[in-house]
């Protein structure tokens, strides 16, 4: 494990549309680490993840983000994805008509091509897919259905984790992957995530609840408020927040961002 950060965020300011949301974020994520980000509704957590994956409509106005030593800000989203940046969406979209397995194979092969690996044919892919589906306990018939169409909230989240398992990114961002999950699904999703923990991978886990962090134990916990990180600590910070809420921390705005 090297000490150079895998992801380095320096003084990041960003707009969503024309509205400034992120107001100077500094974070260093080293390989092998899991960072949790907590914070009130509207504090900018999803904005941060959207900026990191290059979603159109979000603009970096100041500061820099590097990934594996490369500037991320000017990279096209699909290139970031192929290079290993992955976001498990807070609200996964449905794409009617496009079968899950076909989509997943296209995505896996796009990433493999980028890494200089051979394409997986339908049979090899199916073997890999079945193996990963077991990890998130997804029934096989879901794969021939359209992407997320008619999936329950929990199934959509599991599908996100399945995609992460298949694409094997080195920087995993999970945006409230635990919200809307029942106890069993939470355990399944957390297991999937823990499978991915490795010395050369970094995770940024956005959540509101300690219960996820019982399963995915973070190395660092940060509190985001008003577009800034107002407090950082170790896993005990999350427990403290669970108990006391955000009110006691200096700089936390009561009603989200102004």
């Amino acid at each position, binding site marked *: 494990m090297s000490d150079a950060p895998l992801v380095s965020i320096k003084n990041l300011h960003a707009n969503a549309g024309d509205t400034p949301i992120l107001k100077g974020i500094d974070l260093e994520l080293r390989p092998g680490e899991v960072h949790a980000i907590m914070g009130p509704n509207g504090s900018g957590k999803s904005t941060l993840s959207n900026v990191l*994956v290059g*979603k*159109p*409509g979000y603009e970096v106005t100041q500061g820099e983000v590097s990934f594996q030593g490369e500037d991320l800000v000017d990279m*096209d*989203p*699909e290139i970031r*994805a*192929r290079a290993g940046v*992955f*976001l498990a*969406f807070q609200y*996964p*979209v449905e*794409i*009617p*008509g*496009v*079968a899950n397995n*076909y*989509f997943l194979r*296209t*995505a896996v092969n*796009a*990433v493999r091509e*980028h890494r200089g690996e051979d394409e997986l044919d339908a049979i090899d892919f199916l073997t890999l897919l079945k193996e990963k589906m077991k990890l998130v306990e997804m029934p096989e018939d879901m794969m021939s259905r*359209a992407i997320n169409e008619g999936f329950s909230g929990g199934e959509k989240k599991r599908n996100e984790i399945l*995609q992460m398992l298949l*694409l094997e990114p080195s920087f995993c961002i999970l945006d409230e992957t635990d919200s809307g999950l029942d106890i069993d699904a939470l355990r399944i999703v957390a297991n999937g995530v823990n499978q991915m923990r490795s010395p050369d991978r970094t995770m940024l886990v956005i959540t509101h609840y300690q219960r996820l962090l019982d399963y995915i134990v973070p190395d660092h916990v940060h509190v985001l408020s008003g577009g800034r990180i107002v407090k950082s600590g170790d896993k005990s910070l999350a427990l403290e927040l669970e108990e006391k809420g955000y009110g006691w921390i200096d700089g936390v705005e009561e009603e989200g961002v102004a």
Partner: protein
Amino acid sequence: MAGVNPELEKLAKQDYKYGFVTDIEEDRVAPGLTEDVVRLISSKKNEPEWLLEYRLKAYRRFREMLQEEESHPEWAKVSYPRIDYDDIVYYSAPKQQKKIESLDDLDPELRETYDKLGISLLEQKRLNGIAVDAVFDSVSVATTFKAELEKHGIIFCSFSEAVENHPDLVKKYLGSVVPYSDNFFACLNAAVFSDGSFAYIPKGVRCPMELSTYFRINAAGTGQFERTLLIADDDAYVSYLEGCTAPQRDENQLHAAVVELVALDRAEIKYSTVQNWYPGDENGVGGIYNFVTKRGACRGHKSKISWTQVETGSAITWKYPSCLLIGDESVGEFYSVAMTNNKQQADTGTKMIHIGKNTSSTIISKGISAGHGDQSYRGLVRMGPKAHGARNYSQCDSLLMGDKCGAHTFPYLEASNPTATLEHEATTSKISDDQLFFCRQRGISEEDAISMIVNGFCKEVLRELPMEFAVEAQNLLSVSLEGAVG
């Protein structure tokens, strides 16, 4: 959604791959629509008297229609200036030796043209299982695999040859499904049709290969007026494919074809079209006016006619492949993908006319609009008074890309039998920025994402196409959308 996606914009700026012109000497008549021109076409083809009479009847009726305001087909949701029918060349054919003995004698220019289009006319090079009739401007220049088909008693030849060699069949069925007076463009076609394909599948024969016609407009200033007639006798089966391209020109060219299908007892005809006429440029200059009448008559008990079309080309498309469900328990199907991009317009759909008992029909229509494309689905389902127990299911889905295009649905449902059931579903959706971004976040380029979503949207139709065509159609859809993405 934040304005028009730049990828979607780019989809609108692609090149038309088949826009080249073949430099070949053509025998063409002077422009203009007169009785003499009709007689000239007929005499060039050594037609029998009855056929000339048929043409002349149509010609006279068309002259009347030109004068009758209500006969002009202006109810369709497309707009174009009225056509000057005296400005069109009605006959243009490559000069070649009267009769070629074998395909090897075909003018190399022509063979090369079809090679460039991906249609090899040399049998040994053909994919097994497809026989081709190649129609170049006003005439059929080659038909492959004739001998092989003859062994099964199947007649597959150009329309002109059919008139010469099988006049009784032609006389019996010509105009029996689409009467010459049926509509404006069908009437014009009946007067001046030049060539086309003819097929007859005898009783009990399953045609062992796909039959296909490839239409190519080459000469400038000409119209193409071809005529196709397919007859499947009792218990026969045939799958027929049709493809079309034309050079890239700044003028509009008229293509007014008539296709008639006849299915007798328990016969089945599957008719597939991949239409890729030159669509005009991104400003709507040039392109083919594709005004076509296609109709099939399920005359026999339990007969079946299935239309599948993928329409990506033409400046304007006006066509409604239809089924007359006359025989009891006969089945009609219509599967359609229509794509309009840039300034393309399409008014397309179908008619299912239920006449016999327990007849059933299915309509699956998928419309895709990008750029400033505008399209309408127009479908008529009529349950006649004797159509006891008849059923129809219709589904019309539209997919919009960007915010400058349009999609409209005009279903006409007429039920004069209380035991008939009709079901109609319609949806309109958009490819959202969030969907595209989701794909990109998984490493898939925006263009691939769009083509994946579009192909997914059309898959119920694409899977009705024969294999070779399905792949071609998928590629065509992607190419037609190239430039709608940034």
